[in-house]
């Protein structure tokens, strides 16, 4: 037992003490934020300017097609598909004559291909113009309709979930976000840390240290020490991320003006509805902050974080030993590792696909079963738990899922240890899955 601790210690410290660990731990979230910011920025800024010549057979659109910052509609005379480019237009929109209500095709021809968002914007503008025309025909002004729409926005849907005697407020969007986020995180880390275990085992084998080691410790101790050590590295990384996020959020609080915070607190007191004529009225910022805080509070965070740690560890242990077994049979050639990894990566990817579905429809039979079977339960159960226990996920489902995951990783570790024991001392021979199966199910 003591020897496993020494091995865990080395595996853990040799990775955590590495400067690269600190760097990736801090840079990964930053890069992710940068990625999203960058993607959003380019989505907004990446639009091209279009100057569109409209050839309208009905003579109705002129004055009704609204220009945007990037799209300019003009109605020049004597422009057709042959000469619009020479006249300085980027596109030409051909609108045929209406014939009743049957469907007709508008055609837009352009110098360059039109982007998806621009195409949607143009289509929307045309629809609006037609809608306006129809409203006018029915005797309603556009401005009137807009003001009615705005005034009617007072109703808000709150969904409550049965929880014994009381009903808990829930928020589908938040549940989706949590479910998808934690499922995704488990998916990524399973690959990262699984591959780390595999590389570690391969290193031991190619460096020829395996036999030196197993003359002092049992192969099982060596394998388990490595798996636990690397799992601890993963937990350390999560812990650092949590501290980073909490720290950043605390720092963000200082950036909010004092009076806004006061307003938020008042909102909290009155449960979001400040009585009319009160001393203090809440501004838009305070309303928004209150909404975010209120939405976040609808999730059962202790349960979600607890389950996340359990399913991260369980899923990691389930797959890490399989990765270790593959690492132990690989010879120098990394391509062997690729092909041998396939049967392990396939169920992980498959679980991810089920997870993306389960996070939208957490109650379907396939989601329920996939959240119980240990191959896929870490990801799929996390996707469902966010929707509430015991509302969406019954207690028995959670318990059976957890027990079968524990049983599952004990089984994979036991089988992998047998493959590992033989594989780690074997050089110069390519091993097939059939042989590995034979070793795994061999007695003693």
């Amino acid at each position, binding site marked *: 037992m003591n020897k496993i601790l020494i091995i865990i210690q080395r595996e853990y410290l040799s990775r955590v003490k590495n400067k690269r660990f600190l760097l990736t731990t801090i840079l990964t979230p930053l890069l992710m934020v940068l990625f999203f910011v960058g993607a959003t920025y380019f989505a907004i800024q990446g639009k091209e300017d279009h100057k569109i010549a409209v050839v309208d057979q009905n003579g109705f659109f002129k004055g009704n097609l609204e220009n945007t910052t990037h799209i300019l509609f003009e109605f020049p005379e004597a422009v057709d598909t042959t000469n619009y480019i020479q006249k300085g237009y980027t596109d030409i929109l051909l609108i045929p004559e209406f014939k009743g209500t049957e469907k007709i095709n508008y055609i837009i021809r352009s110098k360059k291909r039109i982007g998806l968002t621009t195409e949607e914007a143009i289509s929307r503008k045309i629809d609006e113009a037609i809608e306006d025309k129809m409203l006018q025909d029915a005797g309603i002004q556009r401005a009137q309709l807009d003001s009615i729409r705005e005034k009617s926005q007072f109703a808000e849907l709150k969904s409550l979930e049965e929880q014994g005697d009381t009903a808990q407020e829930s928020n589908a969007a938040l549940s989706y976000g949590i479910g998808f986020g934690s499922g995704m995180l488990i998916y990524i880390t399973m690959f990262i840390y699984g591959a780390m275990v595999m590389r570690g085992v391969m290193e031991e084998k190619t460096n020829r*240290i395996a036999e030196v080691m197993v003359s002092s410790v049992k192969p099982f101790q060596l394998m388990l020490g490595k798996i636990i050590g690397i799992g601890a590295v993963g937990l350390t990384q999560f812990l650092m991320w949590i501290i980073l996020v909490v720290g950043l959020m605390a720092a963000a609080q200082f950036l909010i003006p004092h009076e806004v915070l006061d307003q938020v607190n008042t909102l909290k007191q009155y449960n979001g509805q400040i009585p009319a004529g009160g001393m203090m009225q809440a501004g838009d910022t305070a309303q928004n902050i209150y909404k975010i805080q209120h939405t976040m509070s609808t999730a059962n965070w202790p349960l979600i974080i607890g389950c996340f740690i359990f399913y991260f560890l369980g899923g990691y242990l389930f797959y890490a030993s399989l990765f270790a077994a593959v690492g132990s049979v690989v010879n120098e050639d990394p391509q062997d590792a690729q092909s041998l990894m396939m049967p392990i990566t396939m169920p992980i990817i498959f679980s991810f696909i089920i997870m993306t579905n389960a996070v939208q429809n957490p109650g379907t039979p396939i989601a329920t079963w996939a959240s119980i079977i240990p191959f896929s339960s870490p990801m799929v159960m996390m996707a469902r738990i966010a929707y509430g226990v015991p509302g969406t996920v019954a207690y028995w489902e959670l318990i059976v899922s957890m027990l079968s995951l524990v049983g599952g990783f004990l089984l994979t570790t036991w089988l992998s240890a047998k493959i590992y024991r033989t594989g780690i*001392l074997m050089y*110069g021979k390519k091993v097939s899955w059939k042989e590995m199966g034979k070793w795994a199910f061999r007695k003693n």
Partner: protein
Amino acid sequence: MSAILQLEHLKKHYATQKAVDDISFSIEQGSIFGLLGPNGAGKTTLLRMITGIFYPDSGSILFDGRPFHPEEDIIRIGYMPEERGLYKKMKIGEHALYLAQLKGLSRSEAMEKIRFWFKRLEMESWWNKKVEDLSKGMSQKLQFVTTVLHEPKLIILDEPFSGLDPVNANLIKDEIYGLAQRGSTIIFSTHRMEQVEEICDHIVLVNLGKKILDGTVGNIKQQFKENKFSIKLSELPAVIQSESFTVEERKDHELIVKISPNHRSNDVLQHFLQQQIIIESFHEILPSLNEIFIGLVEGTSATTRAFQQPS
């Protein structure tokens, strides 16, 4: 003297071959024992059973007079396998400490012994270097130190001199003698015969999983001698005819002769004395272990090194 290790009818079968097929021998305490054999003879499998890495299919191992229990006895064994390596990214001092602790030494004990050995082999300045910066010879030295650090009763060295320059090879050889004098038993596995002749007291030769030779180096040479003698004469007669011996080879002043059955070496001397030829030297030619080895192993289909999985 008592036997530190006794192997009785050890067998280990792989799926397609018998790697070790009924081998028995015993090793005296404090001796330097040579385990010889061509590649794929079963040496490594045998050593892995002695070090507790593999379990024998049948047969028994007695360690220090009692049945061998790998779990407890492992601290009294030091094994330097032929396929050996180190963690490249670790510092040398830490690496030595790690392996010593895994053998069961406490941290302070381990530190003390590492300092002792590093000083002895002039490796003190290496402590903070990384393993990947070591030359092959240097890492061999480190591996030797980590093998003997915990002062095991039984030290098993598989090809310990491969990759060492003559100076370091001699250094290690002296340490091996020293360890044997202080009571450790050394099993020395190799196919380099000249080293065996020099170092080992007792040898066992295995081939195709079976023991084919067992004895002291001197006895074995006696057993395989071919009654060949070298004789140097002041002048060689043109014709040498005697029923007591046949000439195998002639150089300018030297003859290699083989004594015929039922004759003795003195008959050769007598033959030349009678002819009034001055004899300058006369000595027996004993076969080298290499010749014995090749003679015994040649012709058998020694299998390749490919490791076979246990069935």
